[in-house]
């Protein structure tokens, strides 16, 4: 439990690498977690080969959701859209390096949910995007 606020999480929360907005962008999606009011918007630029060349996130929320967004975007930079579609809950937890209870898991997975809804071009984000098969 004490590990929850590992240094890397606090660091990415306080000094995120990818906070901001991209204008113009190729993909943009936002959503919130109604439970805690966490709100995140993710913008992406994608080149003609489907590779992600620029990333940014904006919004507000707890250290878990915000650092998860920053770490996740860091990890998808240079990846293709198809690779992003394959990302799972386990990938996010690996990035964060922590174990989470059901409530905080929602915070951690919000960025992935938004990212996947964006690359799939969905109208609405759904929890099924981040559930294990």
């Amino acid at each position: 439990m004490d590990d929850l606020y590992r240094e890397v999480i606090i660091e990415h929360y306080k000094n995120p690498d990818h906070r901001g907005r991209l204008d113009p962008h190729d993909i943009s999606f936002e959503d919130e977690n109604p439970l805690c009011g966490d709100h995140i918007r993710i913008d992406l630029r994608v080149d003609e080969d489907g590779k992600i060349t620029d990333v940014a996130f904006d919004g507000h929320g707890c250290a878990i959701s915000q650092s998860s967004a920053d770490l996740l975007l860091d990890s998808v930079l240079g990846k293709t859209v198809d690779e992003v579609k394959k990302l799972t809950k386990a990938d996010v937890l690996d990035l964060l390096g922590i174990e989470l209870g059901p409530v905080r898991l929602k915070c951690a997975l919000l960025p992935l949910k938004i990212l996947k809804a964006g690359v799939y071009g969905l109208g609405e984000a759904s929890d099924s995007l981040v559930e294990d098969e």
Partner: protein
Amino acid sequence: MSEMYKVENKLGAIRADFPILSREVRPGVPLIYMDSAATSQKPEAVIEAMNRYYRWTNANIHRGVHALAEEATAMYESARERIARFIGAGKAREVVFTRNTTESINLVAYTWARKFLSKGDLIVLSEMEHHSNLVPWQILAAEKELRLEFIHVTDEGEFDQESYQGLLEQHPKLVSITHVSNVLGTINPVKEMIVQAHTVGARVLIDGAQSVPHMPVNVKELDADFLAFSAHKMLGPTGIGALWAREETLEAMPPFLGGGEMIKRVYLRTFTPNEIPHKFEAGTPAIAEAMGFGAAIDYLNEIGMDTVAAYESDLVKYGMEALGQVKGLRILGPAADRRCALMAFTMEGAHPHDVAQILDMDGIAVRAGHHCAMPLHDRYNIPASTRASLYLYNTRAEIDQLVISLGKVNKLFN
């Protein structure tokens, strides 16, 4: 001062009455429960009353002549009588058992308001209402084309009385407001506001979810028209609450849910409703919970609501001062002398969810989020807050630990 002494004297005994308070959250980490505004803990007497019912009396009520049914019915109705007396109601039949505050408010919306309000009529609510005193009216307003207006809340966390006066000039049919805010802690001057509402012919519903558990509330003195409250916030069980209204008002209201118990006579195509309060209690009610509710009332009576209020007022004064020392912490709502024993706050650089999580590491249970009052958080332009809500079993020592643990939050985030 002597009230303070009375409770402090009994305090050790009070804490021992609540089995859960002696548990550890994790090995070596005792529970510090500061989430009583969400639901209070239950004393042994309440748990035992429900147990006893299931072990000794269990039977359905109002429909049997056997010994158990008679006993269960008498106990159920005795709980109603004690609740009525507790809130100063003239008659037990003025107390309707519901599931909770939410259902009590919905009952008024779906029966009284649906019958007596019509297109264009105005209902006055406020910006500090719990969702349960907003959404039922939104649903009804959409159905019947009613108007909803809202008393503004000042920066200090109190009703803007000027905006209230302005709304009264528009002759509302109903004013439905909370007695005590579950976020700001504000004790609203509802008595004066009821007088003013009555002068323009409006009825008044008081959401007593956060007041009835913590201070003496007397419906006659208040002269309210409806009072809604929940057992689980006042040491009683979940699943039961109450609605109080005057006999004449209840008589004039159509029934709520249809089914057994709420009828006098049923034909294939019609029915005649039962007398009040049974008219509003369709189906088998929460019988064991009524026993628990009654036991909670007895317990609070034993201590005395004046004593509870005095103790909590002292505790919140101490708490406000203590939290005031924490760097970057901002408490929502008014000064200690105008509030109940709950403190919602924000902390610079730390999200409420993270604050709550870090407190939890030290066994401190607080709530983070919007506390079912999203519009109020919008009003103050904050997405969420952390809330420590206290009751008669909390101590100054627990507040001291809260302050220490909040220091850890600052160390981590600032």
